[in-house]
């Protein structure tokens, strides 16, 4: 099965907001390299979809088995913060056969994907995701979600009962499809949702990518009775917490601005040097290119609780 990743760099944009311009986007290299290494070790072949700028600045220093460069024009600086996740859908549209997409800040240390690869599933995701953002959005737009065929009200309500009445999404740190007809349908509906958000037909949207990527995927899967494998079982995620579930199963997803946190980046670097020394030259070559870069690592408000 095709293991694919994607990384498109637009100017110097990162996934967090900051009131200054710097070169922090270059720090993505460390998580991208470890993500590639762990996938390569387990699954042998990794294809990266990117734009030329991302390749020139970062990705040429990682030995992907295949690189597909595609300069997309529909994601610009002005709409980046809401639309960056749409880039994944452009990559999905290029897929002709079953695949698994793994985010560049996800590290898989044990074989967690063979269950989906060898099993009878329509799709695979990282895990359920609980957030008040989903419920707030759902109840504020219930009539439109029915009108535009994003949900089946009865199924949706029954499913929420399983999660104490909470509306959930599916985190797409890992997402894959064997049912390519469903993928086509999901891609179309995700882009439709983005359009409805942008033209204000649908509102109460705090974070658009969570809605059009993760909420829509979950609702369409249950609405269409698709069989979905969760890499991190919901009983572990909801019972023990996300971080603990990842620790138990050998799965890391940095999420959000964590990929720019100094402590985490140093851990990644040390992990590569210690456990994957065959990649040291790639790391050294990249670090030579950023010797004069304007980089400002982030901190983490609860760093002491992790170590």
């Amino acid at each position, binding site marked *: 099965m095709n293991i694919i990743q994607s990384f498109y760099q637009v100017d110097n944009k990162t*996934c*967090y*907001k*900051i*009131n*200054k311009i710097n070169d922090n986007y270059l720090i993505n290299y460390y998580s991208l390299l470890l993500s590639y290494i762990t996938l390569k070790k387990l699954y042998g072949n990794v294809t990266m979809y990117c734009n030329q700028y991302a390749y020139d600045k970062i990705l040429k220093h990682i030995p992907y088995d295949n690189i597909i460069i595609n300069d997309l024009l529909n994601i610009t600086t002005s709409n980046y*913060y809401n639309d960056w996740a749409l880039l994944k859908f452009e990559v999905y549209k290029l897929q002709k056969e079953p695949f698994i997409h793994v985010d560049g800040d996800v*590290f898989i*240390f044990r074989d967690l994907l063979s269950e989906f690869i060898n099993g009878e599933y329509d799709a695979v995701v990282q895990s359920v995701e609980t*957030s008040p*953002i989903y419920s707030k959005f759902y109840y504020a737009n219930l009539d439109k979600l029915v009108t535009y065929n994003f949900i089946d009200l009865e199924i949706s309500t029954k499913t929420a009962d399983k999660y104490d009445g909470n509306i959930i999404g599916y985190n797409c*740190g890992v997402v894959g499809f064997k049912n390519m007809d469903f993928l086509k349908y999901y891609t179309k509906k995700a882009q439709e949702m983005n359009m409805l958000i942008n033209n204000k037909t649908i509102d109460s949207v*705090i*974070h658009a*990518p*969570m809605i059009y990527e993760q909420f829509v995927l979950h609702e369409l899967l249950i609405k269409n009775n698709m069989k979905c494998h969760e890499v*991190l079982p919901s009983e572990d995620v909801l019972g023990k*917490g*996300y*971080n603990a*579930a*990842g*620790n138990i*199963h*050998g*799965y*890391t*997803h*940095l*999420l*959000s*601005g*964590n990929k*720019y*946190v100094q402590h*985490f980046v140093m*851990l*990644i670097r040390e*992990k590569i040097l210690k456990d994957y020394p065959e990649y040291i030259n790639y790391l050294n070559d990249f670090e030579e290119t950023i010797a004069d870069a304007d980089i*400002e690592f*982030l*901190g*983490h*408000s*609860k760093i002491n609780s*992790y*170590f």
Partner: protein
Amino acid sequence: MELIKKTILQAVTTGTTTGCTGSCRIIIPNSGATYCFKIGLTQEAIDIGFFDAYVEYGGYGYGGNDVNLSGENIIQVSVEPIGINNLL
């Protein structure tokens, strides 16, 4: 902007005086005392999910930490990562 008011006890010391027999002491204000107190500056931020709460550049770190001596302001991420122990 918030106005912070706190009442603190005045530092006192003993001083000498005359007009008594033996060793006489009086309580006087300690004009040389250094008053030290720690102010924790926190910005309330609501974690709204993926775009985590952050301190605007130019703010201070979370959790009552002192501003570091250089006055450097560091943006703090608050979203919990998944499976961080796998990096150890």
